[in-house]
C-alpha cells in the first residue's frame, strides 16, 4: 500500500458516491493498510487521522471527510510527482538556420486550425490561402502541418496539401517525400506519391520504377500509373506493362489512363480546329 493506492481508492469512492461508502470494503482495506505505514512520517500520520473516520460507522458527515481527504491526498501526491527517466534516447538535431519565418496568429491561425482539426469548411480555407498566394505557407509551423495534411482522412484535403507542398517547396519537398518511401505501403504511400505527381514528368522514372516493380503494393502501382498521365510518351511503357501478369486493379488503371489520353487528344484536336 502506498499513498497513490489510497488516492485511487478515495477517488473511486467519490465516483460511486459517498452514500455507499460504508459498503466499500476496498476503501476500508486500503485505509487499514495505510494505517500500518502511517507512522513513517508526519504527513502520512495526518492523512491517516483524516481518513480513519471513514472506516467508522458512527461517523456522521462522511462526504465532507471524503472531500477533505481527497483534497489533502491530492496535494501530497502533487508534491510527489516525478520527472521521466527514459532508458534509450536519441538526440534530436536542431540544425535549422535562425531566420525561420513566423507569422502572427491572425495570419496563420485559420490555416493551421484547418490543417489540424476536422469538420467542414476547412478545405476551402486552405484552398483560398493557396489561391490568394498568401505567405502563410512560408511559416515553418504551417509547413509541418501541411506535410501532415497530406495524410488527412479527407482525401481531397490530402491531395490539396500534397499539391501545395510540392508546388511551394519544389525539389526539396519531392526529395523529402521520396526519402524512406515505402513502396509496399498503402494509403500513406499513395498520398505521398499523389503529392510527388504534382512535380509532373520530372519524376517519370520514379513512377515507372514503382509501376513495373511487382513487389510494390497494388495501390501504389495504381497511383504510379495515374501519375504517369503527365506524359503521353509513357504509352509504350504501359502497353508493355499491361501484357505482363499484373493485378486487375492495375490493368484497369492502365485502361483509364489510355482513355484519359484519348480524351485529351480529342480535346486538343477540337481546339486546333476551332483555332483554324
Amino acid at each position, binding site marked *: 500500500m502506498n499513498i*497513490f493506492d489510497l488516492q485511487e481508492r478515495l*477517488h473511486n469512492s*467519490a*465516483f*460511486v*458516491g*459517498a*452514500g455507499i461508502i460504508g459498503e466499500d470494503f476496498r476503501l476500508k482495506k486500503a485505509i487499514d493498510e495505510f494505517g500500518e505505514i502511517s507512522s513513517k512520517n508526519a504527513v502520512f500520520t495526518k492523512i491517516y487521522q483524516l481518513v480513519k473516520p471513514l472506516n467508522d460507522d458512527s461517523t456522521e458527515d462522511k*462526504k465532507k471527510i*471524503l*472531500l*477533505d481527504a*481527497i*483534497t489533502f491526498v*491530492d*496535494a*501530497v*501526491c*502533487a*508534491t*510527489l*510527482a*516525478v*520527472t*521521466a*527517466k*527514459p*532508458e*534509450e*534516447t*536519441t*538526440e*534530436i*538535431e*536542431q*540544425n*535549422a*538556420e*535562425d531566420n*525561420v519565418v*513566423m*507569422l*502572427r*496568429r*491572425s*495570419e*496563420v*491561425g*485559420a490555416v493551421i486550425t484547418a490543417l489540424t482539426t476536422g469538420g467542414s469548411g476547412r478545405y476551402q480555407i486552405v484552398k483560398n490561402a493557396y489561391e490568394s498566394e498568401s505567405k502563410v505557407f512560408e511559416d*515553418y*509551423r504551417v*509547413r*509541418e502541418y501541411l*506535410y501532415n495534411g497530406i495524410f488527412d482522412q479527407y482525401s481531397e484535403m490530402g491531395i490539396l496539401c500534397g499539391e501545395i507542398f510540392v508546388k511551394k517547396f519544389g525539389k526539396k519537398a519531392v526529395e523529402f517525400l521520396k526519402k524512406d518511401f515505402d513502396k509496399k505501403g498503402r494509403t500513406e504511400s499513395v498520398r505521398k506519391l499523389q503529392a510527388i505527381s504534382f512535380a509532373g514528368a520530372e519524376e517519370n522514372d520514379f513512377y515507372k520504377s514503382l509501376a513495373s516493380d511487382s513487389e510494390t503494393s497494388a495501390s501504389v502501382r495504381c497511383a504510379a500509373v495515374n501519375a504517369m498521365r503527365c506524359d503521353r510518351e509513357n504509352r509504350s511503357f504501359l502497353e508493355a506493362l499491361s501484357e505482363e501478369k499484373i493485378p486487375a486493379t492495375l490493368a484497369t488503371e492502365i485502361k483509364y489512363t489510355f482513355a484519359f489520353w484519348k480524351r485529351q487528344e480529342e480535346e486538343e484536336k477540337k481546339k486546333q480546329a476551332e483555332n483554324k
Partner: protein
Amino acid sequence: MNITEDYIASLAPNASAVTNGKKISKTGGFVSLHKSPDSTLYYGECSGSGKSLYSTSVDFIDEASPVCRCSCPSRQIPCKHAVGLLFEILSGKTFEEGEVPEDIAKKREKKANAEEKKKERESKPSKPNKTTAVNKMKKQLEGLEIVEKFVDEVITRGISSVMGTGLATYLELAKDLGNYYLIEPQNIILNILYTMKKGAKEPEKTNELVLKDIIKLHSIVKKGKEFLKDKIEKKELPAEDDAFLEMIGFTWKLTQLKELGLYRENAELVQLSFDVSYIDSRSEFLDEGIWIDLQTGEISKTENHRPTRAMNYIKEEDSFFDVACVPELCIYPGDSNRRVRWDKFVPRNLTKDDIMKIIDFASTDIQAVIKNVKNCIKNPLSTDSVVSLVRYDKFVRDDKNVYIVCGDTYIATDVSENMLKKIPSAECAVTELYIQDGKICANVLSVVTDKNIIRLKY
C-alpha cells in the same frame, strides 16, 4: 512614432481588418494624405463603397493610446480605412503638411477634458458603499450554500449521478448562480456539466476531471464561507491583495489594483507565446498571451475573454513580436504567472540586448522550477500549470516521447520531433509545466535563441 505591422495588428479589431486595410493601402484607396506639422495627426480621404469619400484620421496626440476616426458606417474601431491609413504611414507614403481639421481639434479638446476629469476622479480615493458591499457578500454567502448543496449531492450520489435527470436541474442551478455574483463557481459547474455531457465515451477520464472541479468547488465553499462570514461580521470591504477573491465573484477594476499598489510604471514587456482557445462550457474564446517583464523577468499572462454572443464587439488579441512599453502596468493578485493588464502602450523593436536579457532570466535550476510548480499546483484553487523560462541542453526522443533535457532531468513534452528539426538549437525554452499521472510534463511554447524568440504555438 515607431509604427510596425505588428503594432497595426495589435490595434486592429481582427485579422480581416488588417488584411482589408493592407489591401486598401496597396490598391491606392487613399486619394489624399495629410499630416499635422507636429506629426501627431495623420489624415486622409479614402474611397469606399459609398458615393462620397471617407474622412479617415489617426491621432497620436497621446502616443500610447492613438485614436482612429473615420466617417464610414462601420462599427469596428479602428475600421479597415483607419488600418489602411496606418499602412500608408508604414509604407512611407508622402503626407502633405496641413492644419489640424476643426472637427478633430474640437474632439481633441473634448478628449483632453474627459481625461482630466478621469484623472481627478482617480486621484480621489474611492468611497465604496459599505452597506451595498455587505449586502452583496450576504448574497454571495447564500450562493455558496447552494454550491455546497450541489457538491454534497454529487459526492453523496456519485459523480455519474450528474448525468441523466440531474443534468437539466444542475444547468438551471448554474444559471441561477449568476444572481449570487458567483461567476467562478458558476463556470466550474457549467464545466462539470459540459465534461459529463461530452465524456460519456471515456468515463474514467471524465470522472477524474469532474472530481478535480468538485474538489475546487469544495475548497471555494470552505474558504469562501469563512472569509465572507468574517467580512460580514466586521462590516469590512473585501478589497485585498488575494487571488481567492476572484473565486467568489470579485472582479478587479484597474483603479482598484492601483489603489492596492498592484501596478508598475514604465514596464517593458515581451510576448513569449500566444494562443487562442475555445471554452465550450462558457461559449467563449480566450486569447492568452504569455509575457516576460524585461526589468524583473517575471512571467505573466494576459487574458482576453470573447464570448461568442459579443464576438463583433470585442477586439481579438494577436501575436506581438515587438516590445510593449507600458506606462502603467496593472498586476492581478496571485502566486505565479500573474495576470496583467494595461490600457495604453507604445511599441518598440525587439533588440538583441532584449533577447540577451530574456536569456539571462532563464532559470538554470530546473529542480527549483519544478518545486515551485508543485507548490503552485498542489493548491486546488490554483492553476493546473505554470509557465517558466528554463535553460535546457537538448531535446531527445525515445520510442514514446520527446523530452526536454535540463542537466540530468528529463521532462516529457508534447512537442513534435519534426517541428523541432525545423528550428535552430536554442538557449532556453518557455515551458508550461504540469502534472499528469504523477509525472511532471511540459508543453514547450517557444524557444529563445540568441537572435530570436521562436514560437512553437503562436
